[in-house]
């Protein structure tokens, strides 16, 4: 946190110095829009930084100034002398506070209310307090121009090359050992120096990411939202300048995602999402680019609203908007002065964000793109060049030439002659089998059109985002940390290289792009489904597992696994037709047994033992097959009986047994329990959710009416269709509705309103008895 604060102080101080001229110019010419924008951006940036550095006083001042300046920008306020003075007083105050923070001193805050009050229209000018300067702390860090670092770096490379050449020449002659010793010392110093100079430029992107969790947490709390932040690729290294330049854009994008993207928990619940929003910030290297992705699972871009706003702001005409593609309309969020939010707040402001974000990214030669999935989220991708990023590589030889390959893209290196490796020709391509895993083989020298030296001696297993493959090379020569620079367009156009480098040898070397090589070689990988998406699908619809079996009549049927106690094989002799039905005698007890066909003289057969913890029944089958997940859509069976419905499993219709019907038939009802008929609409909801409640309340629930039974009451869904038969029987019906709010008919009960439901059932039965 200290580092961030230091940086904030240095940055603010620097901007203030640069702003001093603008302020004077604005004072002279308050109508000057460019000056106004510069000052506005300054207070906006200060406001943004204060948010996550927890500097409430600065935040308050800058927010107040920003409000006024925004009013001026929109034409609601005239920048008169009083206003200009008031704003300048605030800017001065910000400077004083920043100095005080740096010096670790406290600063009296009594006059700040006055300063803010002076911003109001028709306010009396505040008497500016005498600036209490003079305690500026000695700077502990120096801010350097990156160009200077660039020159240092390239000078360093020159020194290394000169040293190498000197060493080469000295090796050719007989030299004085003292000269050699001096050269040795020079080499060590140069190597150390180079490390240092390199380090001055490189930083892990973690330097950018480390502040995010706190920022996200605080911002989300401020907005009353719950957000889980996931950071990926924190160890990607890139140019310090890139990190500096990406800090503000990233903060803006994340704030936007939290404020505009991720919905309030209640809205998310209604939309059927988990209440906690998800924000993923990831960094990765792709070719000669670093990709930083900010993905949220919020509402996506409200294109219509953005377009309407753009028209209202006069950025484009309605006709122009109509002519735009969807992508172009989404891109409108990058237009200057546009914000899809109508009211500004402390978090994401008024659209100073995205246009500035884009400008900053483009300034460093990067690009910004977005993928909006309405209702499901927004992914913003920042792509910046990898210039000067340093990379651990291995140097490989193929066809007499050297290439570098990023170590991060290599899964494994194996020798092609080992016992664990096999290479087979398949058609006109080749497959390498490494410890039983089959991988497509790409022979590098053949792919590059270089002279081939027989079979590749070494296989490098290269992992790409889509899949892995084996790259056949002649040999691994070295490992080296290389400074990779983008190669010329004509070189990049091959699609094979990620950049070029100048190693100590003084001969340029090309960095191979693992994914590019696969593409050029024509490898096609089946893209693996993101595990996360899968998890999401499962969370959305918890699957009901079921046992799939072949019945005695050769049909495939399924029974919910929860109803199955066990499957056991019994002797046919233990099954007898006694007491009016088939019964199985086992373990000293007799349980009713179902079978859809005769036992056909089988000596023994598997039997499903079903239990509802009180009653046991047995069901004779031909063979258990598999455990499957029941699809959520079930076609209700005609004529009920022991079949609840039909589902599609593996493309075939399969009957699902209704264990309830089996138990109901097996066990004659005790006369005292009130019988309740559940007319489910096939979703199993009543059975799974309602039944335990009703049974606890003393009802006995059945899904179908057995002969001689007379339910006292029936429950059906408001949209259900099976109530006709019931009314014929003269059974009163309580109808349930899915919606919380009452619909057109008042005789329905919201299905999760337990108390109301039980009351309605009791009422209905009571009315019936009286009537």
């Amino acid at each position, binding site marked *: 946190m200290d580092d961030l604060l230091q940086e904030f102080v240095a940055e603010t101080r620097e901007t203030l110095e640069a702003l001093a001229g603008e302020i004077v110019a604005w004072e002279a010419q308050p109508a000057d829009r460019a000056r106004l924008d510069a000052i506005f951006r300054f207070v906006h940036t200060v406001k943004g930084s204060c948010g996550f550095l927890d500097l409430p006083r600065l935040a308050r001042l800058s927010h107040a100034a920003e409000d006024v300046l925004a009013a001026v920008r929109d034409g609601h306020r005239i920048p008169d002398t009083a206003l200009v003075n008031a704003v300048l007083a605030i800017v001065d105050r910000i400077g004083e506070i920043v100095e005080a923070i740096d010096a670790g001193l406290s600063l009296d805050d009594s006059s700040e209310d006055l300063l803010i009050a002076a911003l109001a229209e028709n306010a009396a000018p505040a008497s500016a307090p005498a600036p209490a300067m003079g305690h500026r702390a000695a700077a502990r860090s120096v801010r350097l121009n990156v160009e200077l670092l660039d020159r240092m770096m390239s000078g360093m*490379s020159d020194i290394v090359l000169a040293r190498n050449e000197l060493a080469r020449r000295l090796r050719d002659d007989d030299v004085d050992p003292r000269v050699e010793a001096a050269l040795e010392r020079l080499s060590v110093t140069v190597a150390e120096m180079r490390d240092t100079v390199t380090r001055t430029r490189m930083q892990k992107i973690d330097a950018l990411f480390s502040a995010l969790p706190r920022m996200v947490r605080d911002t989300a709390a401020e907005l009353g939202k719950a957000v889980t932040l996931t950071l990926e690729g924190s160890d990607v290294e890139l140019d310090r300048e890139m990190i500096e330049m990406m800090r503000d854009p990233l903060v803006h994008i994340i704030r936007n995602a939290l404020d505009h993207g991720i919905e309030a928990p209640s809205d998310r619940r209604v939309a059927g999402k988990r209440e906690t929003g998800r924000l993923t910030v990831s960094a990765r290297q792709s070719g000669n680019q670093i990709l930083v992705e900010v993905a949220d699972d919020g509402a996506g871009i409200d294109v219509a609203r953005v377009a309407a706003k753009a028209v209202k702001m006069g950025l484009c005409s309605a006709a122009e908007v109509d002519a735009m593609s969807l992508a172009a309309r989404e891109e409108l969020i990058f237009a200057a002065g546009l914000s899809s939010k109508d009211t500004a707040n402390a978090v994401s402001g008024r659209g100073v964000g995205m246009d500035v974000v884009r400008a900053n990214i483009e300034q460093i030669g990067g690009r910004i793109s977005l993928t909006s999935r309405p209702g499901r989220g927004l992914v913003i991708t920042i792509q910046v060049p990898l210039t000067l990023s340093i990379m651990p590589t291995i140097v490989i030889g193929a066809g007499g*030439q050297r290439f570098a390959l990023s170590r991060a893209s290599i899964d494994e290196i194996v020798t092609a002659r080992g016992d664990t490796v096999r290479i087979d020709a398949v058609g006109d391509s080749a497959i390498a089998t490494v410890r039983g895993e089959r991988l497509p083989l790409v022979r590098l020298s053949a792919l590059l059109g270089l002279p081939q030296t027989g079979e590749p001696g070494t296989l490098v297993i290269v992992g790409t985002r889509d899949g892995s493959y084996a790259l056949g090379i002649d040999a691994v020569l070295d490992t080296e940390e290389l400074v990779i620079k983008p190669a010329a367009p*004509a*070189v990049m*156009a*091959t699609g094979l290289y990620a950049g070029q*480098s*100048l190693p100590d040898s003084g001969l*340029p070397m*090309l960095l191979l792009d693992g994914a590019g090589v696969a593409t050029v070689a024509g490898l096609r990988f089946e893209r693996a489904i993101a595990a996360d998406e899968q998890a999401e699908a499962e969370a959305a619809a918890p699957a009901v597992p079921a046992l799939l079996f072949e019945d005695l009549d050769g049909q495939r049927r399924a029974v919910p696994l929860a109803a199955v106690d066990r499957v056991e094989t019994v002797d046919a002799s233990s099954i007898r037709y006694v007491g009016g039905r088939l019964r199985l005698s086992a373990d000293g007890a007799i349980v009713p047994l179902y079978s859809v066909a005769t036992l056909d003289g089988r000596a023994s057969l598997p039997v499903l033992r079903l239990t509802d913890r009180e009653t046991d029944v047995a069901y004779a089958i031909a063979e258990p097959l598999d455990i499957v997940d029941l699809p959520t859509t079930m076609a209700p069976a005609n004529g009920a009986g022991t079949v609840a419905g039909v589902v599609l499993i593996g493309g075939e219709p399969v009957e699902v047994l209704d264990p309830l019907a089996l138990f109901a038939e097996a066990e004659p009802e005790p006369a005292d329990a009130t019988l309740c008929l559940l007319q489910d609409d096939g979703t199993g909801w009543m059975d799974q959710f309602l039944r335990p409640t009703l049974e606890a309340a003393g009802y006995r629930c059945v899904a179908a009416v057995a002969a001689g039974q007379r339910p006292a009451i029936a429950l059906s869904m408001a949209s259900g269709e099976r109530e006709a038969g019931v009314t014929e029987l003269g059974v009163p019906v309580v109808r349930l509705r899915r919606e919380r709010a009452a619909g057109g008919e008042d005789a329905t009960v919201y299905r999760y309103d337990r108390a109301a439901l039980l009351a309605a059932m009791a009422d209905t039965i009571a009315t019936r008895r009286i009537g």
Partner: protein
Amino acid sequence: MDLYLIAHIAGRGVAIPTEQVDSVVDLGDVVAVPCAVPSVRGLSALRSRVLTVIDTGTALGIEPMPDDCRRAVITRIDGHHYAVLVDSLDDVARYEPLPLSSGLSLQHGWASAGRGLVDRDGDPLLVLDLAALVPGAHKVSAAAA
């Protein structure tokens, strides 16, 4: 009067506007770039800088430059440094730029690289635009978009 560098390419004299010229060097070893277009001869190092070496003959659509050709004009296009191979270099002098003579029909790459003429003591010399010899340089933005 503009300043031009007079060079020889494929036996012909050409004038290169000096604002396009970074420096003039004799190249060291050239490392091939497999699969790149033929006019890219390879990469070479100039101090700590990597140069993309352009085979000027191939880029102009005539015969490739000889293998031992080492002399090159360094130019910087879109932030990348290129070494454009030449047979030899003459001198640097000021000339009045003239439009291409009407009726002059240039073939091969000369047509796209020729920008005009200068008169060097009675000899007309073609003014060469180095950027037109560099493959892909002007197409970058289109490809990236």
